[in-house]
C-alpha cells in the first residue's frame, strides 16, 4: 500500500521504471498493471494514459484489461485491504456469520472503502487454505478458523 501520495510527475516516473523493469510488449501488460496496483493501490487515469504511450496500446485496451481482473484496481483502496473468502468450504463451516460480523464491525459492504480511508472490504476467491476455514486476509496476513467473536480483536491489531 502507498505510504505517501505522489504527484502526477512522480507517478509517471515510477510507472516508467516499472515498464522498464518488466517490459513493454503486450504480454507484459498484466504483470505491469499488477505491479502498479501493488505499488500505488490503484491504476489511475494518469497511469493508464502514460502506459498507453509507453506500451503503444490504446487506452481503452488498458482500461478493458484493468477492469476485467479482480486483483487489478481502478478504484483507490484504503490503507488496509480486508479480503474475506466467500468460497463454499468457508461458507459451510460458518463463513456467513463471520462475514456478517465483519461487515458490521467495519460498517462496510464488499467493494466499499471507509470514509477515513483506513479499510477497504473485498471478497476474494478461494485462497486454497480450506482446511482452516473460515479464512480472511488482511493485507498479506492470513487468519484461519475465524469466529464471529474474534473479528473485532483481529481488526484492532491494525493502525
Amino acid at each position, binding site marked *: 500500500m502507498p505510504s505517501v501520495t505522489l504527484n502526477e510527475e512522480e507517478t509517471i516516473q515510477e510507472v516508467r521504471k516499472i515498464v522498464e523493469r518488466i517490459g513493454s510488449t503486450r504480454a507484459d501488460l498484466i504483470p505491469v498493471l499488477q505491479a502498479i496496483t501493488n505499488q500505488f493501490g490503484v491504476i489511475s487515469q494518469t497511469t493508464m494514459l502514460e502506459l498507453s504511450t509507453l506500451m503503444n496500446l490504446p487506452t481503452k485496451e488498458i482500461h478493458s484489461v484493468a477492469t476485467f*481482473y479482480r486483483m487489478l484496481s481502478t478504484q483507490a483502496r484504503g490503507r488496509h485491504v480486508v479480503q474475506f473468502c466467500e468460497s463454499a468450504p468457508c461458507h459451510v463451516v460458518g463463513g456467513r456469520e463471520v462475514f456478517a460480523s465483519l461487515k458490521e464491525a467495519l460498517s462496510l459492504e464488499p467493494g466499499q472503502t471507509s470514509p477515513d480511508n483506513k479499510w477497504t472490504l473485498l471478497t476474494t*476467491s478461494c485462497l486454497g487454505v480450506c482446511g482452516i476455514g473460515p479464512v480472511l486476509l488482511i493485507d498479506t496476513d492470513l487468519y484461519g478458523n475465524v469466529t464471529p467473536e474474534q473479528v473485532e480483536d483481529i481488526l484492532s491489531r491494525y493502525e
Partner: protein
Amino acid sequence: MTFYRSTVLVSVDPLCVEKGAYELIDTLQDELIKQGLLDEVQVLETPRLGDPETLGPDIVVYPEGTHYTNITYFDIPRLVEEHFIKGRILKQYAATMIDAIDEELTAPKSKEIRVVLENIGVIDPRNIEDYFAKDGYMALGKVLTEMTPEEVIQEILDAKLRGRGGAGFPTGLKWKFARQAEGDVKYVICNADEGDPGAFMNRRVLEGDPHSVIEGMCIAAYAIGAQQGYIYCRAEYPIAVSTMNLAIKQARSIGLLGKNILGTNFSFDLEIRMGAGAFVCGEETALMASIEGSRGEPRARPPFPANKGLWGKPTNINNVETYANVPRIIQKGADWFASMGTEKSKGTKTFALAGDVNNTGLIEVPFGITLREIIFDVGGGIKGNKKFKAVQTGGPMGGCLPESLLDLPVDYETLGQAGSIMGSGGMIVMDEGTCMVDIARFFMEFTQDESCGKCVPCRVGTHRLLEILEKICAGDGEEGDIEELEELSDQIKRNSLCGLGQGAPNPVVSTLEHFMDEYKAHIYEKRCPAKVCRALIKYEIMDGPCTGCTVCARNCPVNAISGERKETHVIDQDICIKCGICFQVCKFDAINIT
C-alpha cells in the same frame, strides 16, 4: 543429497510467525554454526505442526519426533546444547502428548495410494538435490537418451493417463495432436490456475514437489517439440509462485532447463505467469488470452490449442497434477500406472476434502474407490456425529450427490452420469444442517459473479437462475419456479461458449434432482427444513429452559428481546432480524428455531 543426523521442522504458519518463528530460525542457524553442527542438523520450514491453541512457535526434531512448543529464540542455545550436543530432551518445552500434524496432509490412510503426493512433506521443495534423491529427473534423462518423442507419447497413451484438470481428456492424445500440428514454434503450458473453491491439491504439489511439474513439462515439451513453456499460476498462491521460481532457477543452473539439456539437442525453458484473480482463466482458451496480455475471455473451440494455441501456435496445455504424473509413468512404466484404477480411469486422483468431515485435507486415492470409502474411511466420517447429507464434487460446476449415490465408484464417467463431474478434485462434504437450496443459490452467486460476460446464455442465464433461487430462499417462491429453473438450466448448458457456462447449472440441476423435497418445502410450505434460510425460520424462547439470565436480551443487536430478570424472555418477531446471536449466546439451549 546431504544426509543429516537431525532435521528440525519449524512451523511458520501465520500464528507462529507472529510469535517469532523466523527469529527463532535465525538464532538456531547461528547457534548451529557456532557449535559446528551445521553439517549435521538441517532446519526446514513447514506449515502448521500442532494445535493452533498452543503458544507457538512449534518445532519438531526428527528422527526422534520430539515436539517442542512455546519455545522462543532465547531458549535456542540451551536447546542446542541439551538436545543436539548432549542428546537429552529439554523436558520443559517438550509437548509429549501432542502428535505432530500437518493439517493439510496427514499420514496416508489405509485406502490411499500416494503417487503425486509421494514426495510432499518428505523432501525439501527448495532444494533440487532432495528431488534427485527421490530419483528426480531420471525420467527426463531416460526420455532424452533412450526414447523418441513418438515412444514417449505411446507410453503416455498406454498408461491411459487422463487430464486431471477435470475434463479427463486422454493426455497422450493431446500430445499426439500437438506433435502432429504443423509449425516450428510450439508451446507447453501448465494450468496452475486452481480456482475451484475448496481445491488446493495443485497448490501443495507446486509448493511441495515443484520439480516433478518441471520434469513433466520438459518431457511433454520433448514429446511435442516445444521450446518454451509457461506455468500459469494464480496470484492467490504467492508461496507456490516463489517456490516454482526458485525451482526453475535451480534446474536452469545445472542445465536441466535451457539450451541443450543434458548435452542433447533438446532445448527448453520455462517462465511463470501470474493470474490476476479471474476464475474463468482456468479455462484453457481464456488462460492463453491472459498470458497474451488480454482480458481472460474464452473463445470457441475448434480450433483447439493443439493446433492454434498461444499466439496462434500449436500448444499443449495440461494441469499440474497431470504433469506430475508423467515422470512416474516414464520411470515405472505404463503397465504399473494402468494397474491402478478402473477400466477407463487409470491411476490415482488427489482430492481436497473440506466441509463437515472429520479429516479435512489432502488425500490421494486410486480411481474406483467409492465416495463412501472416501468420506467415512479416509475422511473419518461426519463432524460431531451428525448425519451425512450431500457431497459436492467438482467445484462450482459440479453437482451435489446424496446418500443413495455414496456407493458409486469414483471415476470420470460415473460421476458424470450421476449429474456431477470429477472436476479438479474439490470435495465438500455437507451435513444435515445444510440447506440444499441455499447451497445451489450460493454456487450460482459464484458462477454469476465469475462469468466473464462474453456470451449471453452464461451472463444473463446465470443471473436469472440466481434471481429465482434468491426469491425462493427469501420465502417468495411460487408455482412455476421449479419448471423455470429446469428450463433455464437446460438452455444455459446447451448454449454457453465454454465449460464455465456449460457447467454452471450443475449445482441447480443436481439439487433439483436429488433434493426436490427441499425446494418444494421452501416454495409451497414456506419452510426451510435445514433451518438455514432466514426468511423462513423463526427464533423463539422456550418457557422451560429459559432462566431469565438476560444474556440474549443484552446481546440482541436490535433490542427485540424483552423480559424481567429470572423470568422467561420473549422475542418480538416484528423487530427480530434473525441474526441468530441469541441462539449462539444462550447457555441453556432455550432458543428454539422453527
